[in-house]
């Protein structure tokens, strides 16, 4: 092979060609990557199926909005945070003092941590508070995609058809379903939360429909309670309080990013024989204003088995506590932290995997707070640990008060003599439960949570003084 004598040897050529081949291959990979990135920048929503107000199955919506639906489906996750999360552990076993505090009420039998949105209806089907106790259809107001069912029931009850009567149809159907036994009403719904609970079907604009919330927020608007965190209510008042406050017309998009959540994440009670779900906001959102409302309507959730006190049960008042905090005051909405925008390709979508921000600190917190994740986590946990230790003290105090009242009654103290101590148990227990049932371990408004627990401890100890000296 004489021609290899001049110039390069054969293996030189082979190696050089191999190297250029690999390099060319790599450059083409890069080219393809740049093409993909450029394509990302031009993506849009494609409506491939027709969906409307009556489409309750989120999977149908998922065909048009796959990103939102995919993240919504991930609310089946089971994940613990230090103080909460979405793992359905039995709180009564984790902290047996609650058995004593809830004695005589369904919560003393089953009090589990709630799982994610995808489980809201299943959790309700499974809890012993529903399987072992008689419950009304009211519960479905928040645990099911119930609005189309309300509209049907409203039409059946004689409300005229047509979109202009939508609110009246919903209100009437709501009254009908609340009055039914739970098992009968349960047959009329099939899905947990659905897209139209928060979105208008034609425009996908945020919208509230749940009647108890609409009634509640209107009552709040009519009161004189200051709402700096909800400027649209203040504006409606300033403009002469014409007609009814309507969040769907009056509230800004940023306010709606909280109000859609406030449809359910609130304190409520079942009013009267019709068991109508009612949000007690006529006097305001603070713990003592809600208490004053309950005292006025003489509402009692149950009579405590051991002490005989006429006590209240608080229910996840997230919206009420958040309203007292600095984030609300700064214009930060529920969705900013619990459904932060995530980038997929070149598109930003709000993450429908609703969960604790502690499981997603980068997107939830670092958008505003440019500190390392570990630093942010330890700040939050410091707040929650302090809250927890105050909560422990308040639980101890309430349990001690219950025991003192029980002992006094055994000694033969009359109901008249024990009235003061029992009223103080109602006050103390209401405050303790308000913070315990609220799902942020105090984070939504740390100082307010501490104030409330401080009052709970004080009222319980005052009650003990009365009980110990009762004749």
């Amino acid at each position, binding site marked *: 092979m004489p*021609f*290899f004598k*001049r*110039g*390069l040897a*054969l293996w030189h*050529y082979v190696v*050089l*060609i191999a190297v*250029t*081949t690999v*390099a*060319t291959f790599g*450059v*083409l990979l*890069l*080219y393809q*990557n*740049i*093409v993909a*990135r450029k394509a*990302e*920048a031009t993506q849009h929503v494609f409506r491939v199926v027709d969906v409307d107000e009556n489409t309750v199955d989120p999977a149908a919506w998922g065909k048009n909005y796959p990103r939102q639906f995919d993240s919504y489906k991930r609310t089946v996750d089971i994940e613990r945070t230090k103080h909460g999360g979405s793992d359905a552990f039995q709180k009564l076993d984790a902290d047996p003092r609650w058995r004593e505090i809830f004695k005589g009420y369904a919560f003393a039998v089953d009090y589990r941590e709630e799982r994610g949105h995808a489980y809201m209806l299943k959790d309700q089907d499974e809890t012993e508070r529903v399987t072992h106790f008689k419950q009304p259809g009211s519960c479905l107001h928040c645990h099911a995609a119930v609005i189309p069912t309300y509209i049907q029931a409203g039409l059946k009850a004689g409300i005229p058809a047509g979109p202009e009567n939508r609110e009246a149809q919903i209100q009437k159907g709501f009254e009908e379903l609340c009055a039914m036994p739970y098992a009968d009403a349960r047959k009329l719904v099939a899905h947990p939360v659905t897209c139209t609970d928060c979105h208008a079907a034609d425009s996908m604009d945020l919208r509230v429909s749940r009647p108890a919330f609409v009634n509640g927020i209107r009552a709040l608007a009519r009161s004189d309670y200051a709402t700096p965190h909800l400027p649209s209510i203040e504006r409606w008042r300033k403009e002469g309080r014409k007609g009814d406050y309507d969040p769907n017309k009056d509230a800004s998009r940023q306010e709606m990013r909280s109000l859609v959540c406030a449809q359910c994440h609130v304190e409520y009670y079942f009013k009267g024989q019709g068991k109508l779900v009612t949000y007690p906001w006529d006097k305001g959102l603070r713990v003592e204003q809600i208490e004053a409302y309950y005292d006025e309507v003489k509402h009692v959730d149950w009579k405590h088995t051991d002490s005989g006190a006429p006590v209240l049960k608080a229910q996840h008042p997230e919206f009420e506590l958040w309203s007292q905090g600095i984030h609300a005051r700064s*214009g930060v909405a529920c969705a900013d932290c619990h459904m932060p925008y995530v*980038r997929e*390709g*070149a598109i930003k979508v709000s993450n429908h995997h609703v969960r604790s921000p502690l499981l997603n600190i*980068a*997107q939830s917190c*670092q*958008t*505003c707070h*440019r500190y390392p994740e570990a630093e942010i986590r330890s700040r939050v946990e410091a707040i929650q640990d302090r809250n927890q230790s105050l909560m422990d003290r308040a639980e101890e105090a309430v349990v001690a008060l219950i025991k003192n009242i029980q002992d006094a009654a055994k000694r033969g103290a009359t109901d008249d003599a024990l009235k003061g101590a029992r009223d103080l148990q109602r006050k103390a227990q209401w405050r303790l439960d308000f913070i315990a049932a609220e799902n942020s371990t105090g984070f939504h408004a740390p100082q307010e949570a501490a104030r409330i627990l401080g009052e709970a401890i004080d009222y319980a100890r005052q009650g003990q003084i009365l009980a110990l000296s009762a004749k």
Partner: protein
Amino acid sequence: MLHLLWPIALSISLGCLAGVGGYTFYYGQGLSYLSNDPAACVNCHIMREQYDGWLKGPHHAVATCNDCHTPHNFIGKYMAKAENGFWHSKGFTFQDFHEPIMIKPRNSALLQKNCVACHERITAEINTHPGDKMKMLDCVHCHREVGHGPVR
């Protein structure tokens, strides 16, 4: 003729590499990155928010991306462009960067120097120690919206 086979094959493959490489550079708007034009920084959709913010920010009329984010001398500027360009390309290609995007200490010090470069008069009595981890004062810690516009 046979003795030319290998040189020809090598020439063809080198030519292909140069052609494909050249086209990819052109398609990726490679030359634009040498310019001062902020539009180049938004070639990648990832910087859209920063760019949109800058359009609405108070410094929009007086400073471009490079004025704040690269040194004000020829060598330093292109060194910074090369270094950040490499990390940006790597992050964008492999999608392995931290979100939200946060400035690195080195670029933070560079930015700080550039604040002082223009605002020397008003900050003459303040020594901000750019680059000194222990002592550096960071203008944008408080003046966050000057470059990238309103935060909310």
